[in-house]
Each structure stands twice: as C-alpha cells, then as structure tokens.
C-alpha cells in the first residue's frame, strides 16, 4: 500500500485562499524534504501555475497523460528553486468534458507512485469539479475565512466530504484579522470551530505580503520571509506531518503588536 498522503484543498465559497494555500503548503512541504506534487483540479479557471511562477514552463497537461500521448514525467513541471515540488497542470480549459471521477482517480494513482504528498487544488462550489476531485482523495483541508457566508459553505462541503468517507478532514482559517476578532466584528475562532466541529490545523493572518508574493509568482514560503502568514503555512505543513506546534492566538498577536508599538513610541520619545 502506498504511504502517499493525498489531500484535497477545498472550501465551498470561492476566493477564500485555496490556491494560495495549495501553493504555499506545497513549497513548505517540499522544503521540509517531502516530495510533493500540486495538482490543479480547477480545470475551468486554472491559476496554480501562475501563483507558482510556472506558467511559461507548461508543455503537456494531465489531459495528455491520460490520453497516453505523453508520459507523466513529461507533463510534470519541476519548480525552479524547490526541486522537491512539481506541478501537474490541468487540461485545456476549453476541453473539460473529458474529465470524470475515474480520470481523476487514474491521475492521482499515477502520482501516488512517485510522491510523498499529493495536494489537489479544488475548484470552488460543489458541482462536478468538486465531485471529481473528492472521488480521488482520502484526506481534505477545508479552507475558510472568518465570514458567515464562507463558514456556511464550508459546513456544506464538510457534510459532503463526510458522506464520501473522506477522513481526516481538517480546518484552516485564512485571512484572520486579529483586531476585528478581538473587537468582535468578525466571527471568533471558537465560533467557527464550534459550528464546523473540525480540528483546526492552522490560522493564517490577513497579510498584504500574501498578495504581493502571489503577484510575483513566488509563494511567501519560498523565501525566508518572517511574515506571520509564511510562518503559519510552515507550521501547517509541520502539523500535517504530526508535529505538535501551538496555534497562534489572535488576541495575543494583537497584544504583541501593541506592545511593539509601545516600544517603538518609547524609543522615539526617549
């Protein structure tokens, strides 16, 4: 039996950070010595290649591999700086009809022969794209932001994952704003875990650096960024491997910030 961990990164609601998380976790796992492949299952609107800065290296896709018009090795795009990480691009967006759950399963089982981790970037929603991706996975990470609508959709997705027997299903809370949480302008971590009833694998703060790095095609985890979001993704990758690392506490982060501000002010004044 293969020891590969195949993990679906999904959310329900769109735009909450699935692709960002897939890219950053992929790099983080690769850096920690795990051979990792990220599979773009968002066939309609692929952009995992963009985020990883690999767009211009794509020659073949999963579609050609399945049609046996190329070998898997030819379609895999190795990351420039992080050789442990490969991308398997989705097929041509205009030819979606070919993909069935069975196709997805064949692709994933090919990948499972070669990699320690297979991360699948899932399309938003609960339509065919999602169903195809679910059929090929064992585990899932559900990404949500602390917004009522995102949590509601995440809950729906968790229900569907449970029915399909996907386990374990773990939670990543993205775009957390400590100040809004402590002021109770946003759902709190407790509110969310209380409803979703999933183990919380990590929280990622709202961070401009995420957007900057995305636009550059260099995920935050690639450099040695000290940004909290980069740290958060590295920690999530470690927790995935069973390491116990305490979660960041938004209220503490806030206090830390305030303390730092006070220090700065003091140095200025005195």
């Amino acid at each position, binding site marked *: 039996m293969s020891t590969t961990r195949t993990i679906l990164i999904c959310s329900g609601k769109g735009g909450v950070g699935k692709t960002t998380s897939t890219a950053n976790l992929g790099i983080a796992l690769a850096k920690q010595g795990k051979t990792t492949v990220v599979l773009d299952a968002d066939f309609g609107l692929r952009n995992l290649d963009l985020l990883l800065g690999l767009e211009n290296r794509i020659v073949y896709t999963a579609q050609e591999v399945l049609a046996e018009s190329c070998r898997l090795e030819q379609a895999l795009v190795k990351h420039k700086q992080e050789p442990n990480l490969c991308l398997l691009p989705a097929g041509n967006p205009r030819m979606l009809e070919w993909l069935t759950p069975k196709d997805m399963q064949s692709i994933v089982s090919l990948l499972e022969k070669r990699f320690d981790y297979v991360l699948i970037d899932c399309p938003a929603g609960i339509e065919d794209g999602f169903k195809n991706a679910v059929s090929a996975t064992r585990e899932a990470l559900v990404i949500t932001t602390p917004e009522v609508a995102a949590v509601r959709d995440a*809950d*729906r997705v968790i229900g569907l994952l449970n029915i399909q027997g996907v386990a374990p299903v773990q939670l990543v809370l993205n775009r957390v704003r400590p100040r809004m949480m402590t002021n109770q302008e946003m759902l709190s971590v407790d509110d969310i875990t209380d409803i979703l009833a999933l183990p919380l694998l990590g929280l990622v703060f709202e961070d401009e650096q995420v957007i900057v790095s995305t636009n550059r095609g260099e995920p935050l985890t690639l450099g040695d960024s000290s940004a909290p979001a980069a740290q958060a993704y590295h920690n999530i990758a470690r927790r995935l491997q069973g390491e116990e690392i305490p979660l960041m506490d938004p209220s503490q982060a806030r206090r830390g910030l305030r303390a730092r501000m006070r220090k700065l002010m003091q140095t200025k004044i005195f």
Partner: protein
Amino acid sequence: MQGLELPNHHVQHWRDALPVLLNQLQPGAISLDCGAWLLTCGELNELRKTMAGMGCNLLEVSATNPETLVCASALGLSARLSSDLIGSQKPRDAPTTDSELLFHQGTLRSGDHLQSDGDILLFGDVNPGALISADGDVMVWGRLRGTAHAGQHGEKQARIIALQLRPVQLRIADVVARGPEDQPQTGLVEQARLQDGEIVIEPAPAQGFIGR
C-alpha cells in the same frame, strides 16, 4: 466484513431485491444495512439461515428503524444505529419513513434537510443553513442553530424541543418566528410551541413528551 445494503424503500421492496443481492455475496462475515426497513425477528432469522446456507455469516445489522435494531439484538446480532441516514446511496433531501418516529444520529450541516411524516428525534446538532422538519414534533438532542419546522402540515399542537434552542428560524404549523438573539442559558432544555397563534419559547417540562 462484506456489506450488504437493502434497497431504499422508495425504490424497491427488499424481498424483491434479495435474490440479486445474495448472488453477489462471497462466503464470509456479513454486515447488513437495513436502511429504514422494519425487519422482524422472524425475517432476520430467516435471512440469517439463508445466508448460512451459502457459507455466509450474518454478524452485524445496522438500521435507522429502532424496531429492526431491537429485533437484531434479540437474535444476538451486533446492532448499530446507522449514522449515515443521509448516505450517498439515498436521496439527500427529505428521507422519510412511514414510522411514527424518525430517529437520526449525526449533525445536520448547512444544506442538509431531514424530515419525517411523524415525529423526529435527532441526536446531534442542526447547524445554520440546515433544515429539520416533521409533521409532528421536532426534538433535537443537541444544539438547534438552523431552521426547524414542526407540524409542517398544519398540526398546531406540534412542538420543537432542543437542548439549546437558538435557531435561525422556527416554524410551527403556518406560523413563523425568528430565533431569539440572546445567549442561551446552559443546561436548560427549551421548547417552542404555539400559544394564541404566536410561537413562545419556554423551559421544557420535566416529563418531556411522555403522556401526550
């Protein structure tokens, strides 16, 4: 252990499906999923004998019908309440039974709808975005945070009872109310019922539903 699943009762009677189902079995231990069917002791025993004749050993029975479970236990089989009533094989919306009480274990998540022609008893939470509805009473052994509809065909005596009653919306017969906004008192079981055409929420009586 091999699984043997009886067909959904909306689709086909289990007795009609049985020959085909039995044909697919390999000799060995069998776990039988009865779904919502009521199987009597006699029927279960007969099934067990038929299977034994094929080299199969019926060990486990799961069902959503409490009576089937009682019969299975009485025969010394391991009996389990199905937690996957809204399972992949069955329609996701509105699984109904003809029995008086529908019993379901597990949390209803956003988009789920559990409903019954009789009363309904849920062991689990009803999350925001989920709906639980019944012709009779709705009882939730858990937190009710979604929408509940009791007496959906006009039964004005129907009640909604939950360990924690903080729904998005409550309906009894044709009356609709929004859920209370204040935080619930912990450890207090509450019920909602119709009084003079309005939905009122009050502590549930100690006797619960006995004697209705």
